[in-house]
Structure formats: structure tokens, C-alpha cells
């Protein structure tokens, strides 16, 4: 009880609350501007969180990401341009609703679903992660090896688009993770004689390069600046909300549960959660024909799912140190820097810190309600902020942010090189999430493999000797075989069904 009160006190003080409000406004702004993602908002925020205590730093990240995901709906509704990729799934529905003069009503529903989804994901985080941590306490390097491999495998098989490209993207991240002194032998790898690289590639400049510089380059390479704001209709934000929610509460619950689950899978974040929730909502709907014509039901599922995915991604991040999405990949780095090493022991040693973290989630998600309401009322500001003025400002923050981590010019070079690589890869439809996961999990994968081999004297079968390790190993192998199995299954069914017809 005492630790709980301590945890509350760490959140309910002027500094932390102020940080949450400021971060929420920042997230709102970044999320509402098309082309700027929630991950980018968090990546740009990290250099500033270095100078905060652990709780406000985490609070800033939670508030920014939750708010940015909601705010992505604002330009989606008014301009048919999703503010963040997580809003892309239902942008067609919300834009058509806006054209019918129901923009505010749509955004009000989005807001309520986002808050509900965020709180649902938080409840799962609060109740599931401590018990999961007790199981994880028995894990050794063998289990962590499989978990890391599971995360990396998921990131490839869940990726939208070509799996081969996802795999190649993963190798880029893994290669980056090997830079620096080798853990076992102390031999420098891929350091090219640069002393700053001995400690490895710092992942913040990588993030900034991948998500911010890459977007800036895409912006200057494109020519579309034209934007028009349809006349604002005099519709109300919340007047229709009770009726909508009464009608579609099942969709909210289903979307939130699905979003939390998908968010918790490594490599799949809020955007994939939204796509799958939208598809599932459509397939289970009684009014399928209305989908795509501006149907509020199409928004409920996916809008709940993307925010619950944000919270769900924290479960594996906190319990195993394995990120559920790109945002928690950044968070894990921040947690280490703040001395809150993720892993099952965080729930034993962390005490009040963990309660503070849970409280932050509730506060940040609840704060979304008033701030989101104001944002909907003032949404014209976000839409009219011209990107031609904004992108140069973000450009400046990229340089200073990358430099600020270690006060080193090497980090600016890293950001530049990674930005160029990400630009080339992203323009050719390579997904970025596997690269990030590779960079974050590469070290865990190699270190757990090496220490396992030390323990077992080089016996590879040791990976299947412990029950949980063997089960995880079997799961990984199953995931690898899944595409082939599905193909075989389809091939078997096709002649059978063809046979039935004749």
C-alpha cells in the first residue's frame, strides 16, 4: 500500500502533471500533421527526456504517443490524409462522414474510442504483466534467446507487403546491432577505427534518421502541398456519442481486445492493429454494405484498436524487455538509461516506480478527453499549419536531437547515413519496423545465444532441454513453417472443393 501511495505521489505533482500536459499537446500537434508519425514524435522527444527524472520521462512518452495516435484522426477526417499510419485504416470512412457535415461527431466518437481503447490496454497491462513477470522470473538465457527470435520472426511474418523485404530490412537492423566491441572477446566489430562506435550504434540517432529525416526527405522530394479544408459544419462533438456507443459497445470491446493483443506482438503496432480491427469489424457487421460509404461503425473498432495497441505493446516491453512496437523499442532504451531495466525484476525491485508507471497510463489516457475535445474544436489550426514552415523546424530538431545524446558529431553522421538508407528502403516498400526490432533485439539475441552456449558447452540441443524453452522454440519453428503450411492446406482444399462441384 505504501509503495502504491509513493507511486501516486510520483505522478500527482506539479512537475509530472505539467510534463504530461505539455507532452500531450506536443503529441497532438505532431500526430495531427500528416507525414509525422507517433514514433517520430517520441524519437524527437527522447533527447529532452534525458534531462528529466524517470517518471516524468516515461509520462512524457506515454502521453505523446497516446495523443499522437488520436490526433492522427483529425487530418484524416478533414483532409482524407491520415496524420499517422495508425489512422489510415478508416480514413475513408471518417472523411466521407466529414463530407456529410459530421466531422466533429466523427472525431468525438474517435476520441471516446481512443480513450476507451487506451484504458482497456492499460487495464490489461496492469493485471497481466505482474503475473506474466512471475513466469518470466524462471527464464534463463535459453528462453530469452527464443523470445528474441520469436519477436524478430513475428516482425517479418506480420509485416504488410513482401516478407523478403521485411527480412532484408531486419538484417539491416541486426547488422547495426553488431557494431561495437564484442561482448565475449572484446574484439571491435565494424567500428572503422571510430572511437565513438566502440560502444555500439546509439539507437536514438538511428530512430531520428529512420523516422524523421526520412520523412523530411520524402516531403522535399514530393510536390503536393495543396490542401483544402471543407466548410466546418455545425455538428456537435459529443451529442451523438451516447447513442453511438450504446449501439456499438461490442465493437469497442472487440477492437480494444484485438488491439491490445496485436500491440503486444513484437513488430506489430497500432497501425496493423487498426487494419485488422477494421477488417474484422467489417466481416462481423450486420451492415457490411454501408462500409466505405461513411459508416460510423467502421471507425469504432479500429479507433479503439490503435490506442489499445499502444498500451498493449508495453506488456512484452516491461516483462521481457522485448518491444511490442517501434515506440516501445525507443522506450526500452529510455528505461535502461533511467536505471529501470525492463524485465521481470522490474515488478519486484521497481515497486513504486511501477505503480507510478501504471498511474501515468491512466492519467495520460484520461487527459486525452479534455485535450482532445479542445483539439477537435480548434482542429483548423493543425490543418492550416503549413508543412513548408514546419518541416525545416523539425529538420533542426533532428540535428540538435541527434547531437544532444552524446554531444557527438558522429551521431549526426549516423542519423544522416541511416536516414539515407531508410529513404531508399522506404521508397521501395521495405517495412521499417523489422529494422528497428533487429537493432533493439540483436544484442539480446546474440548475448543470450553466447551465454547459453557457454553454459551448455556448445551443445545446441540445450535450447530444447528446458520445457518453456522447448515450447518457445517449437513456436518459433511453427511460425517459420506457417506460410508453407497455409499454402499446402490451400492446395489440398482446392482440388477437394473443385471435386465437390463436379
Amino acid at each position: 500500500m505504501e509503495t502504491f501511495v509513493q507511486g501516486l505521489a510520483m505522478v500527482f505533482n506539479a512537475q509530472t502533471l505539467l510534463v504530461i500536459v505539455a507532452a500531450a499537446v506536443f503529441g497532438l500537434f505532431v500526430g495531427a500533421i500528416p507525414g509525422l508519425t507517433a514514433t517520430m514524435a517520441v524519437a524527437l522527444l527522447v533527447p529532452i527526456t534525458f534531462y528529466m527524472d524517470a517518471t516524468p520521462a516515461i509520462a512524457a512518452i506515454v502521453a505523446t504517443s497516446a495523443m499522437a495516435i488520436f490526433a492522427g484522426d483529425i487530418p484524416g477526417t478533414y483532409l482524407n490524409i491520415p496524420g499517422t499510419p495508425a489512422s489510415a485504416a478508416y480514413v475513408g470512412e471518417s472523411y466521407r462522414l466529414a463530407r456529410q457535415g459530421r466531422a466533429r461527431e466523427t472525431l468525438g466518437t474517435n476520441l471516446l474510442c481512443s480513450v476507451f481503447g487506451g484504458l482497456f490496454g492499460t487495464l490489461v497491462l496492469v493485471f497481466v504483466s505482474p503475473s506474466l513477470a512471475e513466469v518470466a522470473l524462471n527464464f534463463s538465457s535459453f528462453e530469452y534467446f527464443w523470445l528474441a527470435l520469436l519477436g524478430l520472426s513475428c516482425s517479418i511474418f506480420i509485416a504488410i507487403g513482401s516478407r523478403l523485404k521485411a527480412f532484408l530490412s531486419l538484417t539491416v537492423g541486426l547488422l547495426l546491432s553488431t557494431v561495437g566491441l564484442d561482448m565475449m572477446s572484446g574484439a571491435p566489430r565494424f567500428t572503422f577505427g571510430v572511437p565513438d562506435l566502440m560502444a555500439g550504434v546509439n539507437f536514438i540517432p538511428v530512430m531520428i534518421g529512420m523516422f524523421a529525416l526520412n520523412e523530411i526527405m520524402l516531403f522535399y522530394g514530393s510536390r503536393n502541398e495543396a490542401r483544402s479544408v471543407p466548410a466546418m459544419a455545425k455538428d456537435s462533438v459529443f451529442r451523438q456519442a451516447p447513442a453511438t456507443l450504446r449501439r456499438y459497445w461490442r465493437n469497442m470491446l472487440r477492437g480494444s481486445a484485438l488491439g491490445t493483443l496485436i500491440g503486444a506482438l513484437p513488430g506489430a503496432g497500432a497501425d496493423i492493429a487498426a487494419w485488422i480491427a477494421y477488417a474484422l469489424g467489417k466481416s462481423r457487421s450486420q451492415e457490411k454494405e454501408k462500409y466505405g460509404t461513411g459508416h460510423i461503425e467502421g471507425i469504432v473498432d479500429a479507433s479503439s484498436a490503435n490506442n489499445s495497441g499502444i498500451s498493449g505493446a508495453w506488456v512484452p516491453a516491461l516483462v521481457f524487455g522485448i518491444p511490442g512496437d517501434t515506440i516501445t523499442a525507443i522506450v526500452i532504451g529510455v528505461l535502461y538509461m533511467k536505471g529501470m531495466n525492463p524485465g521481470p525484476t522490474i515488478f519486484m525491485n521497481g515497486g513504486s516506480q511501477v505503480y507510478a508507471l501504471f498511474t501515468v497510463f491512466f492519467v495520460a489516457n484520461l487527459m486525452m478527453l479534455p485535450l482532445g475535445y479542445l483539439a477537435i474544436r480548434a482542429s483548423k489550426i493543425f490543418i492550416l499549419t503549413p508543412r513548408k514552415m514546419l518541416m525545416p523546424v523539425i529538420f533542426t530538431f533532428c540535428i540538435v536531437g541527434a547531437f544532444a545524446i552524446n554531444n557527438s558529431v558522429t551521431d549526426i553522421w549516423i542519423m544522416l547515413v541511416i536516414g539515407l538508407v531508410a529513404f531508399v528502403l522506404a521508397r521501395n516498400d521495405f517495412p521499417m519496423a523489422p529494422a528497428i526490432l533487429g537493432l533493439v533485439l540483436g544484442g539480446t539475441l546474440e548475448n543470450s545465444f553466447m551465454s547459453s552456449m557457454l553454459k551448455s558447452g556448445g551443445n545446441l540441443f540445450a535450447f530444447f532441454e528446458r520445457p518453456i524453452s522447448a515450447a518457445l522454440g517449437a513456436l518459433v519453428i511453427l511460425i517459420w513453417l506457417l506460410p508453407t503450411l497455409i499454402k499446402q492446406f490451400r492446395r489440398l482444399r482446392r482440388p477437394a472443393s473443385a471435386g465437390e462441384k463436379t
Partner: protein
Amino acid sequence: MRDFLLGLAFAIGGGVVIAVAQTYPTMPSLQYGPSLFPSLIGGGMLIGGALLALSQVRVLAARRHAPEDPGLSRYDYRGLALSLVPCALIVFYILAAETLGAGLCMLLSMWLLMLMRGAKWWLALGVALVVSLIVTLLFSRYLLIPLPEGVLLPQSLAWIG
């Protein structure tokens, strides 16, 4: 075509990684040395890149008889060059910040980037000036980041740091 080249680049890169990894020391007491993971990753890049390139060879071969792809011949080189401007400005910052100072470099870069997309010159200058002042102030004074102050305008900008 671009996928073919990228696949090729990955395959060659993978080969280089494997070659470099072989130079790492092996330790007699360990079965697996520091070269294991880089070699595996290099192998993945080599095989994955080769597969990507080969898959494109088939596509390209099929297309040879078809009319030429207009997207391929009219590649947007201007757009590509414009998207490289921010990168050039980062290099400019790295090279010039020690002399010109971080604030001035940011100001010039932002101004140029804003003008590139057709902002009014005085408005762009004003915004760039205010933002570079705020950023310099925020990072050097409050977050104590040693941003380069430069040697050109030490007196006039001294009050910022």
C-alpha cells in the same frame, strides 16, 4: 528494376560483411566467436538479396516483350535531387557549425528549406530566426548541450549561450 538493383546491393553487402567477419579473432575456449553473428547476418543479406534480384529478373524478362514502362523512363530525378537537399544541409551543418556557430547554421538551413517550398522570404526569415534562437537557448542554456558557438559572431551571439 530498382528492386533488382537493391537485391544486388544487399547481396554484395552481405558478401562484404561475411568477408569482414572472417577477420575477427577466434577464441580457442569458445565454440562460437565474434564472427558468428555477423557471418549469419551477412549470409542472410546475401541469400535474401539474391532472391530479391532473381525474382526481379523474371519480371524484367517478362516485361521485355511488353511496351516500355512509362514509370521507368520518366523517373523523377528532380524530386530525388530535391529530397537530397536536407542531407546536404546536414553535411553543411557538420562542416560549418564550428566556424559559423550552430545558431547561424540552423537559421540559414531553415531559411533555405522554407524558400525551397515557396514561403515568403521575410516570413521565412522571421520564423527561422525565432526558431533558431529558441532552439539554441533551450539546448545550450537549459539542457546544457555544448552546441558549437562559432568564431564568426562571438560577441553578437554570446548572450544566447
